[in-house]
């Protein structure tokens, strides 16, 4: 009896496995921005009608590199049609596991430095994807534009996130050209970050926060600390800005997901990977968020020319979409 049951189960599994197209999606952790990215990918495929009869296998590595590697191996062994890898370490783990199955990375700021592709644009090999490179230069110009007297800018980041290190490097160059100095405010956990900011908030004229996952998780407390010290936060992510920033200028991760979905759709329709381009989002996908209430509290005067360009404005406790 037992044997028959086992046999039945095994054959059921193999029937299921043979009958389906499988897409493997893996992310390093579950996190609002990365989840939004994944939803973007799936929504795009759904709209295109490419999800019918397709099994989507989502695996979260829970920040554990050996699980990330096992997930990559598992996808390869299951012969999934393609792999969507969200964030740097999982993309690297997948890249190490297969040279044949197409890998579409997303939310990797510097895919060249991560050793995934030789350059942005078309590449040989099985890897293509979308970088979440954010307009660091523009964000710091924006900071200088709003706060012409700012000299010391605090950069809040987690030194264990590869993306944040790339942005730190770029922002140092930009700040130097603008006559400002970047003060590093590191924290490898949310609590360390809060301690770090408490210690250094008195030394800076403004705060700049990149697309850092740890900063995103602790933005409520970071925002309160900054507000109490009368220091405005300029963020590279709208959602981070919503949590405590005066101005946010950056990408919505859902849109990054949609753009990644375009690449996935092209591959599902049979386009070879080496004919697709790794790239960034176009500039018109950038959103500008301004919190007028917070600006007033900090006695910060924002020029009318900037307000005209805003996409989201918070006024009298209500957020409105403008334009």
């Amino acid at each position, binding site marked *: 009896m037992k044997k028959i049951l086992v046999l039945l189960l095994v054959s059921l599994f193999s029937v299921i496995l043979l009958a389906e197209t499988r897409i493997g999606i893996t992310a390093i952790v579950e996190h609002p921005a990365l989840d939004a990215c994944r939803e973007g990918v799936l929504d795009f495929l759904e709209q295109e009608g490419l999800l019918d009869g397709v099994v989507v296998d989502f695996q979260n590595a*829970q920040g554990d590199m050996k699980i990330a590697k*096992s997930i990559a*191996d598992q996808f390869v*062994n299951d012969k999934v049609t393609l792999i969507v890898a969200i964030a740097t370490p999982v993309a*690297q783990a997948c890249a190490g596991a297969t040279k044949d199955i197409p890998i579409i990375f997303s939310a990797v700021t510097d895919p*060249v*430095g991560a050793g995934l592709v030789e350059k942005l644009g078309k590449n040989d090999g099985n890897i293509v994807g979308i970088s979440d490179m954010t307009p660091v230069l*523009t964000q710091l110009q924006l900071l200088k534009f709003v706060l012409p007297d700012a000299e010391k800018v605090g950069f809040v980041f987690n030194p264990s996130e590869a993306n944040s290190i*790339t942005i730190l490097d770029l922002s140092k160059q930009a700040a130097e050209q603008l006559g400002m100095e970047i003060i590093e405010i590191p924290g490898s956990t949310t609590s360390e970050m809060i301690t770090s900011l408490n210690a250094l908030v008195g030394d800076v004229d403004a705060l700049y926060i990149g697309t850092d996952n740890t900063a995103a998780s602790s933005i409520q407390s970071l925002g309160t600390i900054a507000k109490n010290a009368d220091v405005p936060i300029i963020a590279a992510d709208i959602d981070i800005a919503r949590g405590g920033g005066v101005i946010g200028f950056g990408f919505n991760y859902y849109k990054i997901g949609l753009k990644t979905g375009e690449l996935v759709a092209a591959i599902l329709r049979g386009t070879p990977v080496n004919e697709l381009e790794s790239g960034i989002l176009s500039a018109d996908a950038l959103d*500008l968020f301004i919190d007028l209430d917070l600006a007033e509290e900090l006695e910060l005067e924002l020029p009318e020319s900037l307000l005209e360009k805003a996409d989201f404005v918070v006024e009298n406790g209500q957020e409105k979409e403008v334009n």
Partner: protein
Amino acid sequence: MIVSILEMGTILGIMALGVYLSFRVLDLPDLTCDGSFALGGAITVASLLSGVPVIWCIVLGALGGALAGFATGMIHTRLKVNSLLAGILVMTMIYSINLRIMNGPNLPVPRVSSNQEIQSFEDMSGGTKLDDLFSDFGEMKVSTKSDIKVNDNIFNNDKNGSDLFLIMIITAGIIIILSVFLRTDIGMAVRAFGSNKNAVQSFGISKNVLAVLGLVIGNFLVGLSGSLFSLYSGFADVQMGQSMIVTGLAAVMLGEIILSKVNIIYGLLAPIVGGILYQLLLSLAIKYGYRIGLLASDMKLLTALFIIAVIGISLVTQKDGKRKFKKGVKKIWSNSKA
């Protein structure tokens, strides 16, 4: 599928062997391994990228782990700090050291060479809608450059079994060397240290020396495992040592269930077998788990619960349960012969 489970499981098994040495042989709980695993990987990939031949990269990585073990040993014996706390202290220090070694949180073992510049978003996209506000700032330019060279890797990752062969040879070498070592006078003293920390003084060897020696060897193996893991999976990350100790313990216990402690060779094989079993369970959870609502991320909970269960069961069976169990087995055995 089997090949990759065996490969990954054996690499984890080497780490578990290090845990086995500290927890079982020395009976000295040591949490350094979360740090020394990542340290081994960080040193290996950083030196690989700076052009050191791959074999030396592995040796350096393993020695880095040994150094971490030495630090824990010295803090434990000289400063009289509890070994658990000493391990946590060293593990915490290694986090910062790794960021220095890799000059960042993450280093790839590249498959493609590149010395391309990544331009700023503004240069690639042709500017944003805010540009006309900033005309006063003039021309500005930022970029980041990566100089990555492909180096020889000992693994080729094409699942034809050659990686497995290599890993197996390394593992067999380690087990042979260890089993010879543990039979020498000093090796016997290390084993005796685990049973009775004060009695070993009669060997004429200071118990402090033995504790440090054991931790050095244990963490050498953990560093080696981290080094192989990095080369095998294609990157080193500052967070890759996370919860290694729990995995190591689970592997040791799984192995001990399969292989009873007949002699020291079985004892040394148990962590390897356990590592492979752990990896098998993890793969099954990933492969079939999602059909029953189990996720790979539940593995941490399940692993810890498993360890608690094994400890609980072994406690129960130790008292009178074990005798009854043995009696029962004997009875069945004699019945079957009759």
